[in-house]
């Protein structure tokens, strides 16, 4: 490999020999098979192991259907709110210069680093019976903890950063030129946002929403703390998986788990799709710019 005579650009000078390459690829793939592929295969294997009727019965069971409905309710409450917040935050942070910008970004990232169990505990300590607002809430007969509002609230907390985090780098990279052009040509602020910004950020926004949905559906730790595990009332899909598993009803547990796994595989697929689309969008823009320069 000590190719002094090798010309720059010769691939052999920056590549490993074939056996080394094969060994590295093999080791990496073995690691991924053990820790990624097998867990995935195991979910579907166990879900369908006892036959299709058992699977069908597990996912059409009233308790499962209730869990699915509650999960979607939490998603439909949390994702639109966080989506609106994410767009507003990304606009404020990427389009303007102000002090404390980094502190604001850190604050947005915070729910990602906090342990889910700690997030749930925080809300128990505020809204729970012994919490700060507990006496007031119970006097007014409002139930948040061990009820659906608590589940929605922690879901909002846990999924808060995703849309903002996906949009921030996209909007920062695109800069203000397009918007400034539209505004100087007389477009209103809203029109500029809808016609210029939104098309520019659509794939980032799309992926941010997909990630939020996946995380909102799958959140376990935080929801587990505030749900109280009341059957037929506050059980979301991941909690339902836990209950079935702890009852040694493995086939049913994995059947419900397979639904969630399907959602996460879809998420990964849509991520790749959004990446390819963004790359194409960027390339078109680049081509357009070089064309203009050549003219």
């Amino acid at each position, binding site marked *: *490999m*000590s190719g*002094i005579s*090798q010309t720059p650009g*010769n691939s052999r*000078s*920056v*590549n490993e020999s074939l056996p080394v390459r094969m060994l590295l*690829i093999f080791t*990496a*793939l073995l690691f991924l098979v*053990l*820790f*990624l592929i*097998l*867990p995935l295969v*195991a*979910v579907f294997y166990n879900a369908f192991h006892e036959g299709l009727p058992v699977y069908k019965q597990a996912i059409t069971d009233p308790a499962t259907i209730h869990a699915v409905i509650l999960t979607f309710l939490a998603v439909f409450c949390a994702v639109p*709110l966080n989506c609106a917040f994410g767009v507003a*935050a990304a606009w*404020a942070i990427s*389009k*303007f*210069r*102000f*002090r404390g910008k*980094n502190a*604001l970004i*850190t*604050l947005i*990232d*915070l*729910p990602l*680093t*906090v*342990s*889910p*169990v*700690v997030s749930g*505990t*925080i809300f*128990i*300590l*505020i809204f729970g019976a012994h919490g*700060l607002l507990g006496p007031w809430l119970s006097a007014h007969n409002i139930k948040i903890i061990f009820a659906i509002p608590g589940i929605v609230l922690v879901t*909002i*907390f846990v999924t808060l950063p995703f849309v903002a985090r996906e949009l921030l780098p996209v909007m920062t990279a695109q800069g*203000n030129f397009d918007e400034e052009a539209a*505004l100087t040509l007389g477009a209103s602020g809203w029109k500029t946002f809808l016609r210029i910004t939104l098309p520019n950020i659509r794939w980032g926004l799309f992926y941010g929403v997909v990630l939020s949905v996946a995380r909102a559906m*799958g*959140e*376990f*730790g935080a929801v587990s703390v505030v749900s109280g595990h009341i059957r037929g009332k506050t059980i979301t899909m991941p909690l339902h998986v836990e209950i079935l598993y702890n009852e040694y009803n493995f086939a049913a*547990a994995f059947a419900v*788990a397979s639904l*969630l*796994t399907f959602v*996460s595989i879809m998420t*990964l697929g849509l991520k*790749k799709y959004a990446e390819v689309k963004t790359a194409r969008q960027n390339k078109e823009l680049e081509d357009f710019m070089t064309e203009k320069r050549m003219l």
Partner: protein
Amino acid sequence: MAGKRKKSVIPGFGLTMGITTGYLGLIVLFPLACLFFQTLDVSLDTVQKTVFSGRALAAFGLSFGASFAAACVNTVFGFLVAWVLVRYTFPGRFLVDAMVDLPFALPTAVAGISLTFLYAQNGWLGKFLYGLGIPSVYSRIGVFIALIFIGLPFVVRTVQPVLVNFDTQVEEAAASLGASRFKAFTRVIMPEVLPSAITGFALAFARALGEYGSVVFISGNMPHRTEIVPLLIMTRLEEYDYLGAQILAVVMLVLSFCFLFLINFLQYWGQRHHRMQECVA
């Protein structure tokens, strides 16, 4: 704040900033402030008794130890996976690249039951491990395995873009000056990749420290032996020991803050490192 900025034609600063700070204040700052405010009343003695009890210390020890070990494994293998994905072509590379994010997307409870099935005594992988005398579930090794799964994508995703942007001409220069491939790797590539690998390590470590869903199923949850801190908080809540849960939650929260600042600093350092290199070039 607003007065400091340059006059801009872009509208909506007041509106978007208002929404951002208002929403963050309501959902994040207010709950956190409440928690810290409530904890101010707690006597130091109680804090000491809660945090330095044998059971809590054992939980902290396991959480830190297993998270550290898992993050180390993920740094080595994450780097390898990133390297293989960026530098080599092989069938299924596109698919593998998409699959790496699975631990981000898969609900932790699903990961937990699936890993427990795989590594149980009669499971597909547990069979071999138990044969070798390694108890891979309901043990500390089980916790370690779950945390490897959870932290897997971080190092791959931080190192990958750096490798993609890495200028191979530098390697060619090293090779043409007579450096062996190994030397080029340790002297030329490693220094460039190191900041991102450390960032990935910190991210994986922080994530593992707070992980709950995947660990509860595989660990067996034995106090003093296989109990992690988030689980201990959960147990305290179930015992209606809200004060104990609160103190442990605050400790974990302070740790999260520390990690957040460390990670931000590392990213800043990595970017500066990168810019300096570009300036030299």
